[in-house]
Each structure stands twice: as structure tokens, then as C-alpha cells.
């Protein structure tokens, strides 16, 4: 089995898939770092003051002004209200929600990337791991070895899990190193508040805890890793079912983007909460933003995602073991 996994890793690396993913990460993280840097510059120019309390107060005023305008949807209004209350809570407790430094960048980057950026990177590897063997015809050589089919598929799945883990870890490391050059490397122990919940548009602060930033980042990356595995498993299933890599990429991409759009629309459609793409924003729960459908919790989403992943695995294996290869 180890030898089979070695084979699969060899193919992923020699096909330069991992290098492509790393290159994309380096380019995009640099871009985001620069954008963040410009934003900070702009605020210093505008307020002429670097004290975070002034900045935060200004942000709260800005958001409240937006809330009074009539052209925004109810869902968005609820989101903004929660955010204002959170910011007020930070201000009241004299805690800076955006302590300057690389760890803060890493924290917000992980939060933003969980619904689309990370799934996209994972798809690059997962979507072709089986279908490329079929389109190139090498699957015929692979399946005529004295090895059972389920072992071959399992070795591919384990290689995928390894690649996902490498990507998630590298993402954290790269985000830290690249943004650290601009914002400085300190700030691991900055205090962060977590445990906000929202009930009917009101912020509930009864369970709020103060933790160190590194603990928060660790939690975030655990969730990013979990989402990456779920998305990877679903792409893996599509890769088994569909003969072409571009078809499986297309289907997955459509589902992810539909998820982003739906998240802002479905608050009145209860059963949408069982769709996997609505549940991807796990970091939103620990940050305390309001869920797409009221009543969804972190555990609920993890449960839904797990069921989807297990189902995808079952389908992948039962199809792959039985199917006729032409």
C-alpha cells in the first residue's frame, strides 16, 4: 500500500500540480498583502491617526450610515447589524480586532479563503486524479496489475489527502511569511474574541471567550483543512464518475459559485441548509457572523459536510470497483 501511495504522490508531483498550486498561492497572497497595505495607508491618510480606536469608531459610524439607506437587502442588513454590534463589543472591551501583524493577516486570509479560494486549489489536484488516467488511457495499465481495484483507488485518495494537508499547511506558512515582510511577524499572542452567536439579528455575547490569536488561527486552519477534505472528496467522486477532467472541474466550480450566490439569498428557504455548498463557511461560525439560514450551527454544518463526504466516498468506491473500462 505504501508503494502505491508513493506512486500516486510521484505522479501528482511530476505532473507539476503542486507547483502550480504553490505558484497561485504566492501570487494571490502577495496581491492581497499589497491590497491590505494600501488600505492601511489610506486610513492613515484619511484619519491622520494610527490609533485603532479611532479607526474602529469610524468603521462603526460608516456601517451605521449604510444601514439607514433603503437599498440593501434584509439578509445583508442583518449581517451588517451583527458586525456593528461585534465591533462595538471589541471597542467596549478595549480589544483591537485587527492587531497589525502577519498573524492577523493569516487569520483574516483563512477566513476569506475557505469558501472559494481553498476549494479551487484543491480542485486543481482532485478533479483529475482519476479522470486523467482515463483520458490518457493509463488506467488500463493500472487496473491490469495484480492489485485489487479498491486498493488502487484508496492509494489515490490517500495521496489526495496528503496533498490537501500539504496545501493547507503551505498556505498558512506562505501567508505568514509574505505578509510578515510588510506588516511584521509579531502578534501571535494578541487577544481575539470568539463565541459570538446571533439570535434573531441580535448579537449574543454570553458565550464570548478571550483567546490568543494563535489558538484562533489553529482552530481556523483545522476548519479550513476539514472543508478542503470535503471539497476534495466531492471532486474525487466527480473525477471517478466523469471521464473528462474539465467536466468534473466545471461541475464543482458551478456548485461552489452557486453556493456563494445562494448564501446571500436563502435565509427563507429552510431546506437549502442541507446543500454542501451552503455549509462551507465554517470559519464564519467562530468569527460570529450570522449563518446563511437561521438556526445553522458549526456542528450542524460539520455534520452535513461529513455526510456528503462519506456519501461521495461510497459512490466513488462502488462505481470504480465495478465499472467496465473501455
Amino acid at each position, binding site marked *: 500500500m505504501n508503494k502505491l501511495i508513493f506512486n500516486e504522490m510521484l505522479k501528482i508531483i511530476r505532473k507539476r500540480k503542486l507547483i502550480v498550486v504553490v505558484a497561485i498561492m504566492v501570487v494571490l497572497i502577495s496581491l492581497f498583502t499589497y491590497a491590505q497595505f494600501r488600505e492601511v495607508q489610506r486610513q492613515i491618510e484619511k484619519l491622520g491617526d494610527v490609533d485603532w480606536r479611532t479607526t474602529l469608531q469610524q468603521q462603526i459610524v460608516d456601517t451605521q450610515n449604510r444601514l439607514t439607506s433603503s437599498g440593501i437587502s434584509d439578509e445583508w442588513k442583518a449581517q451588517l447589524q451583527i458586525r456593528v454590534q461585534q465591533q462595538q463589543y471589541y471597542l467596549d472591551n478595549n480589544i483591537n480586532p485587527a492587531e497589525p501583524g502577519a498573524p492577523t493577516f493569516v487569520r483574516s486570509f483563512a477566513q476569506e479563503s475557505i469558501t472559494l479560494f481553498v476549494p479551487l486549489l484543491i480542485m486543481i489536484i482532485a478533479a483529475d486524479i482519476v479522470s486523467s488516467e482515463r483520458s*490518457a488511457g493509463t488506467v488500463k495499465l493500472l487496473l491490469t496489475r495484480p492489485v485489487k481495484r479498491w486498493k488502487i483507488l484508496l492509494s489515490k485518495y490517500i495521496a489526495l489527502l496528503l496533498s490537501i494537508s500539504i496545501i493547507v499547511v503551505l498556505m498558512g506558512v506562505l501567508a505568514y511569511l509574505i505578509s510578515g515582510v510588510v506588516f511584521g511577524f509579531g502578534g501571535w499572542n494578541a487577544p481575539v474574541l470568539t463565541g459570538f452567536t446571533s439570535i434573531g439579528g441580535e448579537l449574543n455575547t454570553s458565550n464570548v471567550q478571550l483567546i490568543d490569536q494563535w489558538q484562533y488561527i489553529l482552530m481556523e486552519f483545522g476548519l479550513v483543512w476539514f472543508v478542503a477534505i470535503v471539497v476534495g472528496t466531492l471532486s474525487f467522486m466527480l473525477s471517478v464518475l466523469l471521464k473528462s477532467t474539465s467536466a468534473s472541474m466545471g461541475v464543482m466550480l458551478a456548485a461552489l459559485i452557486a453556493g456563494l450566490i445562494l448564501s446571500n439569498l436563502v435565509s427563507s428557504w429552510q431546506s437549502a441548509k442541507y446543500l454542501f455548498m451552503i455549509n462551507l463557511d465554517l470559519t464564519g461560525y467562530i468569527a460570529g457572523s450570522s449563518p446563511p439560514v437561521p438556526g445553522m450551527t458549526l456542528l450542524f454544518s460539520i455534520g452535513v459536510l461529513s455526510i456528503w463526504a462519506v456519501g461521495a466516498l461510497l459512490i466513488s468506491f462502488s462505481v470504480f470497483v465495478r465499472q467496465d473500462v473501455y
Partner: protein
Amino acid sequence: MTEITLSIKGLRKKIGKREIIKGLDFELKSGEVFGFLGPNGAGKTTTIRMLVGLIRPTAGSIQVCGYDVKKNFVKAMSHLGCIVENPELYPYLTGLENLQHFSRMIPNFDSNHLEYVIKLVRLQDRINDPVKTYSLGMRQRLGIAQALLGKPKVLILDEPTNGLDPMGIREMREFIRFLAEKEGLTVLVSSHLLSEIQLMCDRVAVISKGKVIKVDTVKNLLHFQEQLVWKVSPVEEGKKLLQTVTTVKLDKENRLVTPLSDKSSSWNHMLVEHGIEVHEIQRKVPALEDLFLELTGGESVE
């Protein structure tokens, strides 16, 4: 050395409602090259894919060295090597890496065997180059090398000379003969090119529309068909005369065709005595083309 290495009984495959393979039976012995001959679409590739476990048969059994492909897949496959259609290897890996990749899938692989196989297919000079730089002939040889990695007793090659130049075809043919005669392998070769099968096979199964029409040695099939072609004038009188002693047909070029017989010299004598000029007597070894046309009742072959 005449143990049965591959045995196929009552093999059938249905796809949807259409039955593509309608009951195949044959047995292959060690040390022989067995031809699997039929026009495109006769079911050769489907059959081969069933033999190597890529497609599940609807009915029937396949045994490799006594192990059932369905019930004992791992054991059966460890005695079998194959190339199905084109030898599709990983183009981004080198030849050596490809072979190492497949050798890691063989239990208790002996790494000395890798060098032996590379030398056998004469790829030692280019083995460290990426496969995407290989010519088709080299890919075909690398394909055979990977098929031989597991020291198989049965080698299945689907259209092994497809796309090769005449030199490559000859090399491939000699190599296949060598494997059967010196290494004692059973080699199953499929082809729609009758001349190929004729030149390299000991026995042949003729297949058409999912059925085996005939299984026999190449020699027998050819002997059975040998004929004499007579060029005489006047043709009509010659024909009448020969009809008194044997069956005569008139071919397209206005020549008389009779079965091969040891009495042909007396027939000749008779024609000359009756004042008929005999310009030419030719012994015709028929190509499998003719045989195939006769067996299948005129279905066209490339």
C-alpha cells in the same frame, strides 16, 4: 511444455440489449503464439478487455494458469501481462520511472528483473529520457517491457504492430516469436491484418460478429485451401476436359482453378494430348484473406 495457460469457456458479453460476444471457447498452451483474427468491430478488443479484467463478462469463465480472473483476480493477473490497444504510458515520466512505477505494483518484485527486461527490449540507451520524446516503436517496446515485468506466463498483445513502420513490424514479429520459443510464453496476438497473423502465429482463431468461426493451426488452414491455377488455351475446351477428372472453376482472369492434387501431372499430360496449350501451371498458397472471405461468407476485411 504443453500445459494450458489460458482457458476461455462460454464467454459472453451483453451491453444493453445487444450481445457483443456470443459465446467464445478456446484454450491456449504454453510456448505458442495464438492469433486472434477478425475485422474491426468483430469483438476482439472487447474480448481482450474481458481477458485482462477490465470488463466484466456477462457469462462464462476465464482462467489464467488455473486461476479464475473474476474470483481470484490478483493471482490470475500475476501470471498475465498485457498491452490493450496503444501502450499508453505516463508521458511526463521517464521510461525507467514508468517501469519502476509499475514494478511497485507487483508483490515481491525482484529489481534485477528490471534491468533484464530493459535489455530485452533494447531500450537501455534511452531509458532515462521522458516518454514523451519516444517514437511509437520505442513506446511499443516500453509497453512490452512493462507487460513482462511480472514474469507472466501469458502475454496478451492487442494489435502490437499497429502504427509501426515495416522495420518495426519485423522486429516486433521476431521478438514475439522469441518470447514464445525461448521464454516459453503463451502469446495472444490480435490483429485485423491477416498477413501479420499468418507470419507469426502457430494457431489462429477466426472471429466474426462475436463468434469464433474456426480455430486451427495456420498450417492446416492454409493446406486445406491450396489450389492449382491453369492458364490454357482454348479455355472452354480445357475446362470441359478437366471437368471429367476434377472440379474446375473459372477465375476472373480467365484461368482455370482446380484443387491441389498429386495427379496434376497426368491432368497436364491429358490436356497436352488433346491439343490444348498449357502456358502456365501455378500452385497458389492462399492468403488468409481468401480463407476469411470464404469462412465469413464475404464479409469485407481490410
